């Protein structure tokens, strides 16, 4: 079975995003970028499937400018076999991304597509579900356990209040949650090897998708800052403040 993993280049999760002075967007100039953390988990899961003999090939795809090849190379260093970059603007809405991924999926014919549940920049949590919809495939979102067996995949999902397990017909789409696995670090030899792995570039025209969007970003603002309050020196003082000043107890 072939596994396709879609990944995204995002702001490093340790960096605090700052809004541009003209309120048009977040300022990403000279900001450290990285592979989206949930996408790392997706790659790890696919690579483990290959190591256990369930998958025979792991293909990684990313949509964006030339710069996102950096993240594709990271995925290759983590164990993916080859990469595809769909050349496009860095900023696209999830529906456009899902349409492009659907075309790549039709072309590659994987048995399973694995994505992160959300990207930590736009925080949309949509692309996997949309891709599954466009393909007419089932979806196992927010996965904490994935088991492929006899033409089906069992996905244990992190839901409000606990866990839910569903059985999905293959092919299917899975999106990863935090506890699915702990991604490995790329070793230096693997980073070197990744440089020689194949990386194909496709255009949106190649895929026959006209990228338009019905969404307009009107403004981006910094939320009101919360002011630091006071330090208390004892539990008694804390309880007193909560009772008499804040009146929440």
């Amino acid at each position, binding site marked *: 079975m072939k596994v396709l993993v879609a990944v995204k280049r995002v702001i490093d999760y340790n960096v605090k995003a700052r809004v541009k002075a003209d309120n048009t967007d977040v300022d990403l100039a000279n900001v450290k970028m990285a592979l989206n953390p949930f996408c790392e988990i997706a790659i790890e899961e696919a690579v483990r499937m290959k190591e256990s003999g369930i998958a025979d090939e792991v293909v990684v795809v990313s949509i964006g400018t030339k710069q996102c090849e950096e993240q594709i190379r990271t995925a290759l260093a983590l164990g993916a076999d080859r990469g595809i970059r769909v050349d496009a603007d860095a900023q696209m809405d999830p529906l456009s991304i899902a349409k492009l991924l659907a075309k790549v999926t039709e072309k590659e014919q994987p048995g399973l597509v694995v994505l992160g549940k959300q990207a*930590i920049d736009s925080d949309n949590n949509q692309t996997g579900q949309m891709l599954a919809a466009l393909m007419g495939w089932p979806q196992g979102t*927010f996965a904490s356990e994935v088991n492929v067996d006899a033409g089906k995949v069992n996905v244990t999902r992190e839901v409000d209040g606990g866990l839910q397990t569903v*059985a999905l*017909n293959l092919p299917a789409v899975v999106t990863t949650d935090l506890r699915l696995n702990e991604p490995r670090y790329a070793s230096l030899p693997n980073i070197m090897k990744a440089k020689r792995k194949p990386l194909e570039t496709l255009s949106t025209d190649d895929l026959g998708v006209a990228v338009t969007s019905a969404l307009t970003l009107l403004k981006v603002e910094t939320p009101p800052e919360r002011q630091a309050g006071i330090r208390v020196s004892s539990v008694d003082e804390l309880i007193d403040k909560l009772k008499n000043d804040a009146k929440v107890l």
Partner: protein
Amino acid sequence: MRLLVIAEHDNNELKPVTLTTLAAAQQIGGEVDLLVAGFNCQIVADAAAVVPAVDKVILADAPVYEHQLAENITQLVLALPGDYSHILAPSTTNGKNLLPRVAALLDVNQLSDTMTVESADTFKRPIYAGNAIATVQSSDAVKVITVRGTAFDAVSAEGGSASIETFSEACDAGLSQFVGEALAESDRPELTAASMVVSGGRGMGNGENFDLLYALADKLGAAVGASRAAVDAGFVPNDMQVGQTGKMVAPELYLAVGISGAIQHLAGMKDSKVIVAINKDEEAPIFQVADYGLVADLFDVVPEMSGKL
């Protein structure tokens, strides 16, 4: 305009987050249909019918809807006869699972985790873990929206008398089956609906030490949450996670214990009314957002607090 709101329920009880989603629908304006899809869930439809913000309840009661499988519920939503201008669901794991699938098949985008209704086509939503707020305008024919429960005040739950219409078609996509579930049994209030939340972080050291927080929470009648670090370390299950990638909470009182205050955690709780931080590291970033900070060893002060309340 006619709006469709997807009810959050467990076939037994209409969840309060439905009422905050209805508040967002009311701000948009128009007639509101509330979809109750489930199995043996007449009791939920009955509860929904007395919510004054609801004009009509659509009850789809069939075994294929029992576990809210996105594949089946999507087909159901698309099969409904209403010509909807907006489709809304709470930003719960159900809503997040379902609505993007609906949106994609309607060939429209979805607005996730909407926190403010500016007009019928313009909304505010948080991006970058809430470090920026985007104002987004949609020209899509149908606006598909998930609603952040903590950003709206719940509409009244009683006093109305909406009609209940039954939609009897059982839509089975035939793609997925429910296998089982393991839901946490707890007498404590639900995290996103609680008026007080006690949360623990990596500083708790291990899962057993969370017993200290459970004891304190039970004194307060509070829910118990955790930071991503505590979940990652395996102390507690993920459904307790508060933060960008977990649950959003905005209680009256949020007590952060042994939590350093990473950006992604703050994203999930900084709208709380009063924040208290207990941490032995006085440089911890959590103190920058806390109304009351206590620099102390949590293993001393948490039991002391439980004893004094």
